[in-house]
């Protein structure tokens, strides 16, 4: 083991939901290590447990048994509010349905996590503008979600995910609601963040096409990891985009 602990260390994690009398095992014992700077896809059909795994990785939910160390901290025993703090500082979410607040302008969406981090308004505003420029929305700062296309909304969501400089970005079917061109744009942004800024990105998807944009593919089935191998020839979304436009 290296001196620096892995970003994510899951040891034999299970998750059991009890629906009345019936118990449903969503995760049957998952062990996983992800290092800082990786670009990983978690793949599997629906019901494979990938969403549950994503919730646990995102500290939205806690494992029934097993250990989850995030940057060396055991998050399995933390209280609600301590988990909120970790989500705020260390994790950025990108959801399939964007999950923007309906009435806020783009800058205010990006400022939201910084409000809860207690960052003063002027600093917040400056950083939000920077991040929106980074995802190519420098000219859409004051637009509300209804005035933006799906791809643009998802880019606002990515900027929001980056707000507090997280160690990890979790993208749950980030292209699920987008057409292929917008999908490629989103993937290009995620790849660029990973390549240029060294942000660790985990993409949860059921589409092999999407998964092939990453450098490591983790396959899940029935609550277990069935395959975990590097992808030596990741598709570059930017060139694909270039080809399409050409």
């Amino acid at each position: 083991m290296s001196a620096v602990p892995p970003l994510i260390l899951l040891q034999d994690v299970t998750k059991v939901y009890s629906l009345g009398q019936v118990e449903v095992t969503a995760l049957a014992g998952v062990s996983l290590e992800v290092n800082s700077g990786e670009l990983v896809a978690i793949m599997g059909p629906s019901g494979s447990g990938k969403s549950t795994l994503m919730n646990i990785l995102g500290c939205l939910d806690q494992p029934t048994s097993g250990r989850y160390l995030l940057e060396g901290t055991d998050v399995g025993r933390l209280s609600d509010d301590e988990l909120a703090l970790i989500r705020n500082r260390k994790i950025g979410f990108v959801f399939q349905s964007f999950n923007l607040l309906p009435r806020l302008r783009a800058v205010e969406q990006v400022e939201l996590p910084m409000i809860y981090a207690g960052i003063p308004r002027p600093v917040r505003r400056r950083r939000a503008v920077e991040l929106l420029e980074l995802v190519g929305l420098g000219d859409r700062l004051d637009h509300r979600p209804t005035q933006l296309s799906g791809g643009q909304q998802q880019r606002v969501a990515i900027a929001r995910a980056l707000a507090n400089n997280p160690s990890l970005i979790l993208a749950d079917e980030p292209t699920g609601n987008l057409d292929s061109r917008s999908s490629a744009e989103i993937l290009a942004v995620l790849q660029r963040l990973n390549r240029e800024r060294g942000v660790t990105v985990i993409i949860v998807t059921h589409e092999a096409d999407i998964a092939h944009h990453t450098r490591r593919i983790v396959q899940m089935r029935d609550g277990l990891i069935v395959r975990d191998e590097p992808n030596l020839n990741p598709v570059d979304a930017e060139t694909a985009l270039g080809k399409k436009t050409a």
Partner: protein
Amino acid sequence: MTKYLDLFLTALQALSVNRLRTFLTVLGIVIGVGSVIAMVSVGRGANEQITARIQNIGTNLLFIGPGQVQQGGLALGFGSAQTLTYDDAVALNSEPELLSMITAAVPFNQTFRQVVGNGTNWNTRVIGTTPDYWWVRNYQLAAGEFFNQQQFDAASAVAILGADVADQLFPESDPIGQNIRIGQATFRVIGVFARKGAGALGNEDDVVVIPLTTFFRSITRQVAARGGSPTVNTIIVQVAERDRMQDAIEAIGAILRQRHRVSQDDFIIRSQEDMLALANQITGIFTLLLGSIAGISLVVGGIGIMNIMLVSVTERTREIGIRKAVGARRREILYQFLTEAVVVSVTGGLLGILLGFGLSRLISTFEINGQRIPTLVSPDAILLAVGVSAIIGLFFGIYPAARAARLNPIEALRYE
């Protein structure tokens, strides 16, 4: 700190998005607070007026009246006895121990008579009393003078007119020196009272005051009772200092019991304080009644807040989920929603104060029997109403806010 300011602004923003809904919720509280303040102001106004009228009678007064008598096991009501005499008053005025506590004991009799003067006639209250009556009863003389001891002793046919009587009989001319007739007797007017205003003992400007001696001789032609002394309706005693009231009551009781040689009191002594206490009790119940009716609307307004907050929490489940996902803690969600409830109720409370003042002023323009309804907006009613509205905001806001704060972020995000 900057965080809570931002969350406060967030709450304001949420309220401004749902303008109509916010307005209606605030309206509920405004009406509640406004009606509490207005209703209590009516009660307080009545109280104030009655208190002023009782105090208008004079200061530190005791009223001694005849008590009840037993006749063969049959108890007649208070005032049925003809037991209080002029000599009782004389005795009270000559007892050294009592005299150290009181300024005067003034007996009086009264009766309603037709008074004729200057070619017109007027039915009024004729009071026969002693020379101390006017100042004990807080009268001022507008013109002339009150009768003196010589005129009293001589049973002179002189009269002092109340302001209303003077206006009725002598609207154009100076009444001083004129003659008036009461029954068969003729009186010379030697004084006119300044207007005193309404008092607890009826209209005190609609009176004619004459010496008690003259009253006995010319008005009632009273046959002397017990020991040759004529009876009187009431003896008013003015006590020198407020804190000697109780001592004076006991001393008077002892003297009268001794003089009347009775075991069971055949007189009753009421103090002005008793009248005030009774009046306060009545108006207090009145105020409480009005206030609680209005208070119901305040509670209804509070339930309105809870209702709106619950709807708002349900409607914004997804928003709460998003906020939690990006790192909002429970207390931050709680704070945001509680702020909304409190802002609504405090705004409602403040506007309610304005409405309360307005309503109270409006009510005071109405008249009953030619008299304006008195109202008095008291600071404690304002404090109460606004305090209650703030508490209602907290109380009815806490449940929905706590529900919002406890939401599981995963389920909240999945909520459609």
